[in-house]
């Protein structure tokens, strides 16, 4: 490995979710220079959109706040939001990375006062609510946004709304002349912390996600349960706003399926078990959660959580992969299938169905550098020369806890790559 010596000591971290933030901080706190690029307008990724974490049921704001504080206090990390990687050339120790930076139309003078949002009339689908709610076209991504700055949606640029926003701003923070920029940066090692996306549930045709309003995904359910979400934390079903007390959770919605995702997404069993807590907390003994599963896969110590949920009389388990969903005249989804414990045929109506959708790599459909190795599901294994590596759920389906572990490991690998600059080069 002595042949490839880093000529550049900077570590580039692609993706600013929990894994990217962690990898960047771990490397930076070891004294390395880090550039953290994020495609979105804020750091935090999908973690920031969760209501609570398993198994301790704490809120992601807590974990994020600690990390964002570490980030603010560290001079070694340079954060670039709205920056997307266009291409990577070079090799281990010496990469040139082309970035496209999209305009935010808001500069660093923004105090997040919200006057621009009040002035703007146009609304857009809120990108942080999985399509469940609208937001003004001048918006703060969410309460934990980093940087704490508003964004103008490109759709209002050139309209009267944009001028209204600028006129409303007391701090001269709105800059409508911002344009796309392309910049090139140098890095010695690259950590791909590009994360995951929920599998497109509409592709699971028999479940009718695209046909039935009351069939939603697990990530959408997180938003429903969240006090900052579209329903203010109430579990109201989309079709008629009725309280959803009798909720079905369908496991392996897309995962472990040769027609969809081949892999087990690993977190979905725990996610559904966790979400039964939300139902119980909302309705007490009147809650009713039913988990339809092939087999429950909770890993090592998380088994305790499963055992506790099994004790809950409001939660029942049906060992069966649901064959199809229909809808009755009241808009209730009706689940059809045959259970494996006795081969009983069932047709059961629920208020709401939550599909525990699988995780697929966010990078599926995006062209990655040629020398990055992917597994059969598209998860990143790294480059052959180790100059690039994956972190967190970009590498396999991981929960937040394991993503952070993976990211710390990735930071160490990246440090080893760039560290060769001073030691090996000095020795020569």
């Amino acid at each position, binding site marked *: 490995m002595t042949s490839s010596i880093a000529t550049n000591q900077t570590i580039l971290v692609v993706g600013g979710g929990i894994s990217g933030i962690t990898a960047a901080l771990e490397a930076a706190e070891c004294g390395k220079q880090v550039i953290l690029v994020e495609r979105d307008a804020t750091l935090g990724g999908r973690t920031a959109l969760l209501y609570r974490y398993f198994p301790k049921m704490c809120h992601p704001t807590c974990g994020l706040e600690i990390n964002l504080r570490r980030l603010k206090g560290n001079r070694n990390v340079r954060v670039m939001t709205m920056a997307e990687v266009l291409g990577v050339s070079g090799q281990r120790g010496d990469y040139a990375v082309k970035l496209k930076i999209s305009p935010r139309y808001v500069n660093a003078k923004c105090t997040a006062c919200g006057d621009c949002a009040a002035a703007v009339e146009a609304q857009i689908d809120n990108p942080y609510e999985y399509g469940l709610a609208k937001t003004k076209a001048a918006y703060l991504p969410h309460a934990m946004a980093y940087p704490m700055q508003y964004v103008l949606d490109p759709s209002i640029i050139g309209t009267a709304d944009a001028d209204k926003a600028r006129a409303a701003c007391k701090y001269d923070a709105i800059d409508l002349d911002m344009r796309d920029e392309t910049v090139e940066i140098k890095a010695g090692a690259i950590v791909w912390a590009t994360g995951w996306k929920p599998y497109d549930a509409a592709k699971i045709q028999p479940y009718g996600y695209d046909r039935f309003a009351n069939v939603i995904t697990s990530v959408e359910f997180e938003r429903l349960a969240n006090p900052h979400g579209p329903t203010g934390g109430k579990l109201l079903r989309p079709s008629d706003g009725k309280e959803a007390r009798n909720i079905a959770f369908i496991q392996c919605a897309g995962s472990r399926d040769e027609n969809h995702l081949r892999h087990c997404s690993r977190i979905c069993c725990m996610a559904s078990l966790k979400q039964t807590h939300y139902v119980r907390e909302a309705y007490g003994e009147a809650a009713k959660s039913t988990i339809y599963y092939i087999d429950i896969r909770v890993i090592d110590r998380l088994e305790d959580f499963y055992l506790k949920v099994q004790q809950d009389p409001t939660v029942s388990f049906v060992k*069966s*992969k*649901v064959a199809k969903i229909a809808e009755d005249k009241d808009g209730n989804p009706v689940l*059809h*299938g*045959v259970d*494996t414990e006795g081969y009983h045929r069932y047709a059961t109506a629920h208020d709401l169905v939550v599909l525990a959708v699988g995780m697929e790599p966010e990078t599926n459909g995006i062209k990655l550098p040629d020398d990055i190795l992917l597994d059969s599901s598209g998860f990143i294994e790294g480059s052959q020369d180790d100059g690039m590596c994956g972190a967190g759920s970009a590498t396999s389906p991981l929960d937040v806890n394991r993503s952070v572990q993976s990211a710390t490991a990735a930071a160490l690998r990246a440090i080893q790559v760039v560290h060769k600059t001073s030691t090996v080069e000095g020795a020569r």
Partner: protein
Amino acid sequence: MNDLNQQAAAHYGKNFLKEVEDRVEDGEWVKMCMQCGVCAGSCPLGPHWEHSPQKIFRMIMAGKRDEVLSSDSMWMCTSCYNCIVRCPRKLPITHIMHGLAHYAHKLNIAPKGQPTREVARLFWNSLVQTGRVNELKFSLAVYFKDGFVRGIKNALAMQGIGLKLMKAKRLNPMEILGGHKCKDAGGIKKMLAKAKEIEDRRQGFSS
């Protein structure tokens, strides 16, 4: 024929799964079933059979040889392919069900008088005579398979359709005299005999 059944049972002992893997078309897929139940829930005839595919596969793994081979469930399959399309492990379920039916028929322990089995037998018997199915004789054979009175009733009930088919030249009444055949009926017979020989050898029946 029942010797065949006894020989097979003796040869494989309690390992019915192995027997299915060796002798049933696509039988090697059975062990891939993870018992999720999607096939059972997706089958449009599901409520009408005794054993769903899911249950049949479990019974095979549990060594329930007689119950599986004498079940009428695989004869109820209409080849709609819902199960194949939805199976998360891509088991060729329809084909396995047909393979099981064929194997049970060969061992002559498939349910007697099962309508699908009878129709298939009549179809096959007609086909092997001349290399062509004699549609008239085949239809009559199907009508009369449950006795003379039943046959007359069936024929009368289908009369209208039969006349329309004749008018449209889809059914030739002269077929009753023997009917059309392929050019080399002897060749067809030889070919089928060879195919049977190959199949028997593969299934370990040749002696």
